[in-house]
């Protein structure tokens, strides 16, 4: 391990050692309180009755834990439906991005048609445009697609197709494909493999790590997104879980809303705990070594 701000030797001896362990313990306790504390509060708070939650000082553990808020949230907000919608949108966005962005990045990296770099430049330029600036014209486009004059409101395509226009994904994939030696490509072509075959049998199997990163980004983006699905999925049957909770929050007791928020957060937390290694390495690999 490389040396950091404070040398190992200093940390291992006498006062340094004492200081190191004190600081480490303090940080572990403080961080647990700061980052898990609110989550604990959220989960147990939703177990309390409406009366208990308004009590001062608040109770650390519910006096009479009850699941009614959770069951009410599940039934009143039709969370099963909302969760299913969100899963469905996330899965579709994942498929569309994997197919279209991967093939685009493959074309830009390996097939290199004329004006490929200009196209890449135009794609990367969209990274500079803040999302809020585009929200109105994007909405207008979705309710009346140019040329086709189709209204995509309440259609999952309104989430899936814009998700494909993700320059960051294309950039990550292209950079990874760039690192695959040309010789492998030319050998495949020599053997008579078509470009599609080369992509499928040679490039993709070598690219599993980056495909994992892109998949994780694709799924979490749909799960976390709020304003866009709120605008293009307006009817109660097509809402995502975040939008559904927001829509119900006005006339629902706050404990029930929080219980629903807990249920909505469970899939992402589980997803994170399963994939945390790839998520964290992907995050840093993607954003740094450009």
């Amino acid at each position: 391990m490389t040396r950091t701000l404070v040398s190992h030797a200093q940390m291992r001896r006498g006062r340094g050692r004492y200081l190191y362990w004190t600081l480490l313990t303090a940080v572990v306790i403080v961080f647990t309180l700061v980052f898990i504390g609110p989550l604990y509060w959220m989960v147990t708070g939703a177990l309390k009755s409406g009366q208990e939650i308004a009590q001062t000082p608040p109770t650390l553990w519910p006096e009479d834990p009850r699941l009614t808020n959770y069951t009410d949230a599940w039934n009143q907000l039709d969370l099963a439906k909302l969760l299913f919608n969100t899963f469905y949108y996330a899965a579709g966005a994942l498929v569309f991005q994997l197919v279209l962005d991967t093939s685009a990045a493959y074309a830009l990296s390996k097939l290199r048609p004329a004006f490929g770099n200009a196209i890449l430049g135009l794609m990367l330029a969209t990274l500079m445009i803040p999302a809020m600036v585009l929200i109105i014209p994007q909405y207008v486009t979705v309710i009346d697609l140019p040329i086709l004059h189709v209204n995509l409101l309440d259609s999952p395509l309104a989430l899936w197709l814009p998700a494909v226009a993700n320059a960051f994904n294309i950039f990550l994939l292209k950079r990874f494909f760039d690192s695959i030696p040309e010789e492998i490509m030319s050998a495949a072509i020599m053997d008579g493999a078509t470009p599609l075959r080369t992509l499928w049998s040679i490039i993709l199997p070598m690219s599993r790590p980056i495909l994992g990163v892109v998949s994780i980004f694709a799924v979490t983006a749909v799960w976390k997104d709020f304003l866009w699905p709120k605008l293009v999925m307006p009817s109660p049957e097509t809402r995502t879980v975040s939008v559904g909770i927001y829509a119900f929050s006005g006339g629902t007791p706050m404990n029930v809303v929080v219980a629903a928020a807990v249920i909505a957060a469970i899939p992402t937390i589980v997803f994170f705990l399963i994939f945390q290694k790839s998520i964290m390495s992907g995050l840093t690999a993607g954003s740094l070594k450009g």
Partner: protein
Amino acid sequence: MATTIAPGAPAEVTASRPLGRRPGRRKRRLQSNLTGYAFLLGAVVCFAVFSWYPMVRGIVMSFQRTRRGETTWVGWDNYERIVNDPSFWTAWKNTFYFTALALVLGYAVPFFVAILLNEFRHAKGYLRILVYLPVMLPPASALFLFKYYAYDPSDAGLFNAVLKFFHLPTSEWMQSTTMTMPAMVIASTWMNMGAAVLIYLAALQNIPGELYEAAEMDGAGIWRRIWNVTIPQTKLILSLMAMLQIVATMQLFIEPLILANGAGTQDSATSVAYLIYQHGFFQNDLNGAAALGVIMLVVLAGFSFVYVRLTSRRDET
């Protein structure tokens, strides 16, 4: 694993091919171009329809007005109307205030947290997971937690209970005009700082240990080492993250929408992005909203230009 790739520079595929003039070379070139475009088609169509076209459309829309299906050119009318909106200047003031506060809190904190975490030899994985956990929560879920449980203005709220425990003055949080912004910054930093921490951690790990060693030999204490080694060595990522963060916080939207029901007490939470939403979807004024979007784009582009200018000039000296 399949990731082990020979480090040699990839040779141009065309260079390894015999370059003689062969019949059909042109045709082959055309065909390979067409194959390339076929692979690009899906993504390019999506970019064209959902990014490039809306960009142009937004600017065009901001000079038009659509009423009952009829669209006419109206010059600068939309801009005039939006600037005269009573909330226009408040929204900009709030947005800048939020950005500045988020810079103080949300920018320095993750960097120092990363420095701290980088020193530990134990519990590293645990601490990283902790810091990143809130990033994975759907923002709507996290914000309802803050709204109902943390920022409860009575003493039953989490924050007030903690403040009371330490005998500190409690606050009315979202119901007080002065605490609205700090409360939104706290929630936003809690939700988002994990990503920045991990990015800084990766940057810190690339600093050669010898630099610290040399600095220590010269008698530099911990703060001097941070100032003279850590910060210069991570300057690039620090300045990039500052810019990304400013552009992101200028688009403040979901925090006021959920925490403050949009505008907040006496307009104390209205942001520019919320005003865009408000005009576009409640006042039935998509053209005015588009105009405000263009104003926002100009402001952010101007800011980015000046920022890049300033930071690159400093590098030259």
